[in-house]
C-alpha cells in the first residue's frame, strides 16, 4: 500500500480522501490555496502545502504547482478527487511521467471516454444501447438536417467535450436545429476549446440513472449497483438515491451489465460511473462515462457497505478487487442531499461568507460529509457545495422521513442554503411516489420557487 499520498483537491472531497487514508494508515499531504488556509480538514493531514492564491487556475488547476508539491513532499500517489484535475488526461499523463501514481483510470481511458463522440462509438461497438443519433460528429448543416430527419425531432445538439449543460441545444424543427448547431459550436469553442458537436434524439421525461463500477488493474470489473440522480436543476444534481425506485430487478441487472460492458470496452480501472437515461418505456440509453469518483459515491457506500475511496487507493496501489460481483449486496435505501450555499429564492445565486452557526444533524441513519463548521468562512472562489447530508434506512419511505427530520434539524446561520428547497422536494408527492423525471425541479420549483416561508433557525 502507499506510504504517502497527496490530495489534489479541497473541501469535502479533500476531507473524505484524508479520512480514507488515515483509516488505511497512509500519510496525507494536503495542498491548499490561500483562500482555504483556515480549512479545518487541513489539521488532519500529515503535511500541508500552500500551492497558490485563491484563483483555481493558479492553485488547484495548476499542474506544475501540484506536481512540484508532490515532488517536494515525496508522495507515491495523487488523489485528484472530483472536478479540478480529476478528468484531465494531461495531468494523469504528467503524473505517470513523474512516476507518481494517479489515482484513477489511465490517461488513455480518461481521454477516450472524456470525448463524448468517442465514448458513444465505444458504446455502440460494445453493444451498449445509446440514444439514437449521429455516427460521430456533425461536419456540416446538411448532415445535421439529414440525421435529425432520420431519428425524428426533438433532437439535441451536444458538444463532444461538453459537460455541465454547456454546449447543449434542444431543437424541435429545422430552423431551431440550424440555430442551435451554430450557437452550441460557438459556446463549446469558448468553453472547451473544441467546437465539434454531435446529434442525439432528445429523450423526453427521462430518469437519470448511473451505475457505479470498480475495476482493478488486472481487468476485473464489478458494478456496485445504480444511483438515481433525476432530481437536478440545470443539469446540477440536487438529490441522489440508491437503489433507483424506477427500476425493476430485471432492468437493474441489464443496466448494470451494460455498464460493466462499457467499462470493459474502455479498459477501465479504478472507480468510475456509467450514466444512462431511462425513458418512459423503460428503455435505457448510455450517455457518458465519468472517469472519476463522484460527489454522490456516498449513497453507493451506504447501501453496499463498501468504502469507495479506500477501494480506489487499493486498486491504484495494484491490489486486485477484494470481492466478486456476487458479493456486492445492496441493503436498504440511501438518499443524499447536496447542501449548497445558494439562495433558492434568488435563482440559486451563491451565498458565500461567514457561517455564524453550523449544527449538523445526527442520530440513527444519518451521515454528514462536510468541511464546514461554526465560524468557517465560505470562500467565494469555488463550488457552492458546503456539505452532503445522507441517510440510510431500511426502506425508501423510512429514508425520506429520516431525511426530512435531519433537514429540519440542520442549523446553518449566515449563508442561505438549499435546505428549504430540498425539504420541499422531499415532501412533494411526485418525489414520494417516484413518478418524477429530470424536469421535476424546473417544473415545480422553476422561475418562482414554491418555497414555504421559514423561521430563523
Amino acid at each position: 500500500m502507499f506510504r504517502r499520498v497527496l490530495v489534489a483537491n479541497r473541501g469535502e472531497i479533500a476531507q473524505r480522501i484524508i479520512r480514507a487514508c488515515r483509516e488505511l494508515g497512509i500519510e496525507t499531504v494536503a495542498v491548499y490555496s490561500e483562500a482555504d488556509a483556515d480549512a479545518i480538514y487541513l489539521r488532519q493531514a500529515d503535511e500541508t502545502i500552500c500551492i497558490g492564491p485563491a484563483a483555481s487556475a493558479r492553485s488547484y488547476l495548476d499542474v506544475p504547482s501540484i506536481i512540484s508539491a508532490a515532488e517536494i513532499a515525496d508522495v507515491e500517489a495523487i488523489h485528484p478527487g472530483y472536478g479540478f484535475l480529476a478528468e484531465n488526461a494531461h495531468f494523469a499523463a504528467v503524473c505517470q511521467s513523474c512516476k507518481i501514481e494517479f489515482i484513477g483510470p489511465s490517461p488513455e481511458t480518461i481521454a477516450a471516454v472524456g470525448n463524448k463522440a468517442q465514448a458513444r462509438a465505444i458504446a455502440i461497438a460494445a453493444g451498449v444501447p445509446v440514444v439514437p443519433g449521429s455516427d460521430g460528429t456533425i461536419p456540416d448543416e446538411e448532415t445535421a438536417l439529414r440525421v435529425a430527419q432520420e431519428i425524428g425531432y426533438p433532437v439535441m445538439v451536444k458538444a463532444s467535450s461538453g459537460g455541465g449543460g454547456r454546449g447543449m441545444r434542444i431543437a424541435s424543427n429545422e430552423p431551431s436545429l440550424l440555430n442551435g448547431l451554430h450557437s452550441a459550436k460557438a459556446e463549446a469553442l469558448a468553453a472547451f476549446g473544441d467546437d465539434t458537436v454531435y446529434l442525439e434524439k432528445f429523450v423526453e421525461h427521462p430518469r437519470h440513472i448511473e451505475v457505479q463500477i470498480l475495476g482493478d488493474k488486472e481487468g476485473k470489473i464489478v458494478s456496485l449497483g445504480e444511483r438515481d440522480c433525476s432530481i437536478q436543476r440545470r443539469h446540477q444534481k440536487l438529490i441522489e438515491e440508491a437503489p433507483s425506485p424506477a427500476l425493476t430487478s430485471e432492468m437493474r441487472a441489464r443496466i448494470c451489465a451494460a455498464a460493466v460492458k462499457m467499462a470493459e470496452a474502455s479498459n477501465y480501472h479504478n472507480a468510475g460511473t456509467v450514466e444512462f437515461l431511462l425513458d418512459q418505456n423503460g428503455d435505457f440509453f448510455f450517455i457518458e462515462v465519468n472517469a472519476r469518483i463522484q460527489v454522490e459515491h456516498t449513497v453507493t457506500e451506504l447501501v453496499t457497505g463498501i468504502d469507495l475511496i479506500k477501494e480506489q487507493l487499493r486498486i491504484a496501489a495494484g491490489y486486485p478487487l477484494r470481492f466478486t460481483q456476487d458479493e456486492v449486496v445492496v441493503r436498504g435505501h440511501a438518499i443524499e442531499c447536496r447542501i449548497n450555499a445558494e439562495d433558492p429564492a434568488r435563482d440559486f445565486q451563491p451565498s458565500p461568507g461567514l457561517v455564524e452557526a453550523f449544527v449538523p444533524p445526527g442520530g440513527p441513519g444519518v451521515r454528514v460529509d462536510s468541511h464546514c463548521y461554526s465560524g468557517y468562512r465560505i470562500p467565494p472562489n469555488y463550488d457552492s457545495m458546503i456539505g452532503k447530508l445522507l441517510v440510510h434506512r431500511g426502506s425508501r419511505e423510512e429514508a425520506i422521513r429520516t431525511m426530512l427530520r435531519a433537514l429540519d434539524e440542520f442549523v446553518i446561520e449566515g449563508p442561505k442554503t438549499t435546505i428549504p428547497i430540498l425539504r420541499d422536494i422531499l415532501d412533494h408527492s411526485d418525489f414520494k411516489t417516484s413518478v418524477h423525471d429530470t424536469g421535476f425541479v424546473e417544473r415545480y420549483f422553476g422561475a418562482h420557487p414554491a418555497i414555504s416561508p421559514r423561521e430563523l433557525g
Partner: protein
Amino acid sequence: MDLKLIRNLLKLMERNEVTELEIEDEKAGLKVHLKRGHEPVAPVSPAPVVNLMSGAAAAPPPPPRGAEPAEPAAEERAPDVAEITSPMVGTFYTAASPEAEPFAPVGTTLDEETTVCIIEAMKVMNEIKAECRGEIFEVLVENGDAVEYGQPLFLVKTA
C-alpha cells in the same frame, strides 16, 4: 510549539472579539502575545500582529508550512523592511549550482531585477527576481529547503 496553536488562538479571539491576548506557559517555555486590530471589510485574511517569542527551553519555531502565511516577528520588524516571498511551490536554492556563489547573501544590494535565488519546480530552475530595491538583511530559508507559495524567503532593508 506549532503554528496551529497561533491559528487556533487567533480564531478564538476573532470569534470572541478579543483584541489582545497574552499567554505565558512556563512548562512549555512559551510566551505568546497577540493583538488584533479591526478586521478590514475587504476579503482576504486580515493581517493580525503576531509577536511570537520562543522561551529558552523551547525549540525554535518550524518553518510556517501548514499555516497561513502569517507574519512572524511583524512587530519587531521596522517599517523599512520588506519581504521577498516565494511565487511558487518548489525547492529553494541560494545559488545556480552547488559550486557557485550564492546569488544574494546577507548584505547584497538589490534592485528589482536582481536574481536572489532559484526555485526548482518540476525539474525547471526558476530564477526569482528581487522585485524591490534595498539590501538583503536576512535569508529566511536554508539552501535545499522546500518552500510553499507565499512563504517569506528574504528580508530586505529598503531604506
